[in-house]
């Protein structure tokens, strides 16, 4: 009982980490493309170069960690989700490939092709959107068992408003998270034009964010009533999330303490994300798979947790080092030291 809770918490935590760092990356790519196309030119290119290039590979490992870890802790997910997620998962991989190509060829090679920037920006928005389908699938109602094999009902999936609400939320969340972060980062680099621009983006996306999020909860009330009820029982987590959102927007509106705003935004998502996850418990896939039935054997669970602790004790100091060098290093952030 304890072990599967540890397992799912670890995975959920890393998924959350991925959502935050990934969103910053994806959103930045989109804003970059947008500013190039609307002629505001390379305000962002520099930031992408300075901050995102050194860490994008690390960002990706968070994603790998999640899908490797979930198969490790809950092997049956490979069976259920592996079969039904083939198409959306493959599309996501191709989009990831397009983005990777940009990093490989554009940032490190020569620069300045508009088409590349456009593809890069677009794939960054569609990638989380296609991954978010997995959340919809896990709500149940779209998977049926035929001859002992799980099948995905594409028609029901694409006709459901829930699907589209989640897709839209994933896109808006990416833009909002990214804009709030970049407001702070641009301010730190001392670039006033960029700061003003991102501040505007952050404010623009703040309202749609809350609207779609509420829309999803509303959708759930009819699509998956038990889940909806559990969300309702955890109302306080979502209430805290809402308050954090209000304070974040207030700070950004009044151009105060962008650093605090970023942290509040992170906690806002943390409360919503963990509230959602806790309400989803114990199901991995409604109604077929729970974390209790799908859990791996005792021996594997313990060795995975031991490996995780050992790995983490290597990882945390290294992560600290890279963030210190690139994200929080005044000289580097302001571009004072030239890099190769």
């Amino acid at each position, binding site marked *: 009982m304890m072990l599967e809770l540890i397992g799912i918490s670890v995975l959920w935590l890393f998924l959350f980490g991925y959502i935050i760092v990934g969103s910053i990356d994806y959103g930045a790519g989109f804003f970059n493309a947008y500013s190039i196309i609307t002629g505001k030119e390379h305000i962002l290119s520099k930031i992408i170069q300075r901050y995102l290039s050194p860490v994008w590979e690390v960002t990706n490992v968070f994603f790998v960690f999640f*899908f490797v870890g979930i198969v490790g802790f809950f092997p049956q997910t490979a069976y259920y989700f592996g079969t039904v997620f083939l198409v959306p998962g493959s599309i996501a991989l191709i989009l990831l490939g397009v983005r990777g190509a940009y990093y490989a060829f554009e940032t490190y090679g020569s620069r300045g092709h508009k088409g590349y920037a456009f593809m890069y920006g677009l794939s960054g928005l569609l990638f989380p959107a296609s991954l978010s389908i997995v959340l919809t699938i896990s709500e149940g109602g779209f998977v049926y068992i035929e001859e002992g094999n799980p099948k995905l009902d594409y028609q029901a999936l694409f006709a459901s408003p829930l699907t589209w609400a989640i897709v839209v939320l994933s896109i808006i969340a990416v833009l909002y998270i990214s804009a709030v972060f970049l407001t702070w980062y641009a301010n730190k680099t001392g670039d006033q034009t960029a700061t003003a621009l991102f501040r505007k983006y952050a404010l623009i996306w703040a309202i749609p964010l809350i609207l779609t999020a509420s829309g999803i909860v509303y959708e759930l009330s009819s699509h998956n009533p038990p889940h909806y009820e559990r969300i309702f029982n955890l109302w306080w987590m979502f209430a805290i999330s809402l308050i954090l959102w209000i304070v974040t927007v207030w700070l950004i509106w009044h151009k105060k303490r962008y650093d605090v705003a970023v942290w509040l935004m992170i906690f806002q998502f943390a409360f919503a994300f963990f509230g959602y996850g806790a309400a989803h418990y114990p199901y991995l896939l409604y109604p077929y798979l729970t974390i209790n039935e799908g859990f791996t054997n005792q021996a594997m669970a313990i060795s995975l947790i031991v490996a995780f602790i050992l790995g983490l004790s290597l990882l945390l100091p290294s992560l600290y080092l890279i963030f210190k060098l690139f994200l929080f290093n005044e000289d580097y952030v302001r571009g004072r030291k030239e890099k190769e």
Partner: protein
Amino acid sequence: MIFDDPVAASRFLTIITLSFHIIYATIGVGVPLLIMIAQWIGIKRNDEHYLLMARRWSKGFIVPVAVGVVTGTAIGLQLSLLWPSFMELAGNVIALPLFMETFAFFFEAIFLGIYLYTWDRFDNPKKHFLLLIPVAIGGAMSAFFITIVNSFMNSPQGFDLVNGQIVNVNPLAAMFTPAMPTKVTHVIVTAYMTIAFLMAAIAAFRLLKGSNHVYHKKALYLTMKIGLIFSIATAIIGDFSGKYLAAYQPEKLAAAEWHFETEGAAPLLMWGLLDEDTQEVSYALKVPYALSILAHGDPMAEVIGLNEFPKEVQPPLIIHYYFDSMVSIGVFMMGLALLYWFGIRMGWAFVKSKWFRWIIVLGAPLSFLAIEFGWWMAEVGRYPWILRGLLTIQDAATTSEYVGIISILFILLYFVLGVGTVVVLRRMFKNNPIEKDITKYEGGGPS
């Protein structure tokens, strides 16, 4: 069409993705070690050229790493998407090394990021050099852990199967299988060998293209020497791999050798043509006693023949050519490196001739081919099993009917990535020839 059958399509897509990823993975394992050696020599001898070598190699390294990350992520997720039943079983028994591998990725990615972007940020060049060590270890550990998984597929152990239920799982026993020691070392050593010959080929190519800079000569000599050492290690460990097969997967060895009847003092057949009905081999190069030596280290030893096994579990006979190609390339590269090294010491002129340098250039694609052939032999030779003796490929594949279309998309992606890698790397170094770099860093001190 193979695309209509989910099993065939899944196999097809798996081959394509893995064969593509392994090119970049090999680079990811091998290049950090070579950079390390060059930078170390540069610091020790205070020789600007070796430092520049390290700097230029690491600059070029970024591009294949990025593609390696993409293709690696693809294969990682594809394993669950295409082989859900296998991963369900694997998750119960062999998840541990897969999980640990992600930490190796983290480690490599973090320190690589730091290393690449801090060339001129340390006052003491040794500190910068130290950052490379975790990168090289991380790359080798990725190969180590993933090859452990592959070893498990070849000689599964560490659990019991009772009425289709997995019980008594021992994750450590599943990691340390009989296949593991030879497989892991062979894979890592061949990666180092291949990358050494890759760098040698680049240096030889530059010399052929008119640059006569001593930088390239130093690079060529250094990398050929490293290549020599690792090609010898490759052959030795390859021999151990043969002994492993004889003991644990005799059907794979027999199929690779077209060895049909169990007999002592078995000869090794290289190449040749097979008449499948009569099991007659013609035109083959026959090395007496060699198969007995490869399998058991004794010229008289008995080697089990393929006819001992039921037809359904006999691997495809094509792996004979894969095996022969791998071994031939291995022996050829070892001879080439030895000749070069000896020639330079003895002052033989022909090792500096144009044709000899062209052969060195050819060595790079050949070494990569040997890696592909080795994997094809190892994986196709496991047929019909995905987990030898326990789970067949047929039962493990997805039942989704969309694998065919998806495969086409992935082929397009890999095509773009493959062509892009070459184009970008060429442009990068064409715009920055060594002469320009030397002027740029002249007098600037090491790193």
